[in-house]
């Protein structure tokens, strides 16, 4: 159910992002989704890739600080209010969303979003009860 997200610590200096993407390219790793959070000095790059194990290995070897986190990928109706429904459900249940970002559009009628939550199991169960299925990890990696 949960998808493995890779987070990388990046100093804000020129060329670092280029180096990182080149490491992934050389290992033939495809990026499915990404988001960046940043401060003045550094940023955290979060990635969903087709082979997280291999990606981590290569990034670590190249000297990057990497951590793996379990996140939830949701397919939600691609229309106004589509996301609101899911978020409201979580909010009412007191489940905190740490951060959220969207996939580059691939699903036909739906949009894909990645959610970082504190209580991933409970969230998945709750969403499922309300007809919102988490996208299986294999589907994401294979996409």
């Amino acid at each position: 159910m949960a998808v493995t997200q890779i987070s990388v610590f990046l100093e804000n200096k020129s060329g670092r992002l280029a180096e990182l993407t080149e490491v992934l390219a050389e290992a033939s790793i495809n990026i499915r989704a990404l988001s960046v959070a940043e401060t003045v000095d550094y940023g955290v790059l979060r990635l969903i890739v087709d082979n997280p194990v291999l990606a981590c290995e290569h990034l670590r070897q190249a000297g990057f600080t990497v951590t793996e986190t379990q996140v939830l990928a949701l397919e939600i109706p691609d229309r106004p209010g589509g996301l609101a429904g899911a978020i409201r459900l979580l909010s009412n249940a007191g489940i905190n969303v740490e951060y959220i970002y969207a996939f580059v559009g691939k699903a036909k009628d739906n949009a894909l979003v990645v959610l970082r939550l504190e209580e991933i199991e409970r969230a998945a169960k709750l969403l499922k009860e309300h007809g919102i299925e988490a996208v299986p990890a294999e589907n994401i990696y294979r996409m």
Partner: protein
Amino acid sequence: MIYNASAECMDRKALERLQMERLQQTVKRVYENVPFYKTRFDAKGIRPRDIRTLEDLELLPFTVKDDLRQTYPFGMFAVPMRQIIRIHASSGTTGHPTVVGYTSEDINTWAEAIARTLSAGGTTAGDIVHNAYGYGLFTGGLGIHYGAERLGATVVPISGGQTKRQVQLLQDFGSNVICCTPSYALYISEMAAEAELDLEKLPLKAGFFGAEPWTEIMRKKIEDSLGIDALDIYGLSEVMGPGVSYNCLLKCGLHINEDFFIPEIIDPITEKPLPPGERGELVFTTITKEAFPVIRYRTRDITSLSYEKCSCGRTFARMQRVSGRTDDMLIIRGVNIFPSQIESVLLEIEEAEPHYQLIVDRQEKSLDTLEVWVEVSADIFSDEMRKLEALQKKVRHEIEALLGISVSVKLVEPKAIARSEGKAKRIIDRREI
């Protein structure tokens, strides 16, 4: 256990009388036999008879490592060569090595100091002592060796290296005590774990670790992985070698063999003596050594002294674990700062050897700034920004609380801090002074 209670638990008044008597003899001897000291004393207008109380120690000139290099190899010896029965030397990575000599009586004193050390950590006659300090010019191996024999223990003079074999012999012989550097103790425990050997099941009960700086966190790690009491021992070849000071099982500072060495703490800049409890540079005057006496030798080690009697019964002054070197000292906005202080903060937060660098700069209006760069290791990295920001804030607050000056903390990528020969350059001082 106390090896020599009549010395180690001596009443302070009696101890001071003994120190005074021995100091006067030493001062007289070096003045008469070592041209270096005669020149130095004369330059300050000091005669041996001017030393009438222990406080008069302050009148004497300091001796520094460079003085020993200038007199290479035997210029500081106070007895004729035929009375010297042993030579040791420091590695001499920067310039000439420092050469030290010992008379038969010096070797005796040294063995006594080590016997006290080993005994304070629970070693008794009949114990098997695995001695993995290097044998050779380095004082560690032979120093421990003679002391363990003096105690009546069985010495395994294995020296360093061949770690697999060391682990095997530790097991086969059923050694009770191990002596080596703290980092080597950790390495041995790792090798044992790899060999799926349960070290906690061995009869090993105590370890005597020194010759390099280490921390409380390392102590705990060694104690947990080897199932022993890990004791800190201190010494330097210029003063004697290992056995200058030692932990008792209470591990609350290191007891200094004060009947052999008089310790002082000085401000490394003003060179004025500091009161007990204050941190500063440790200085030693030897008062029994025949071949190689030193007068007010500046160790460059930073620590503080306490003269309070220990619960173990010993009255000898205790020094705190050495927390840095004067060579590394920074003065920022008038405050003396040692990288080790910052390291201790990071150690507690990271629970691992931290990689950090201190950037000192001076602003236009001549205000010094200290920036602490901390490498973000996988252990402290989080995908959540608020956690990284909280970490940054915590490091800043704790350093500021300890140092009393404001600092800024910057998180950097691993290996962002240049390393040379495995050691990171800790300080970059950009001030133009």
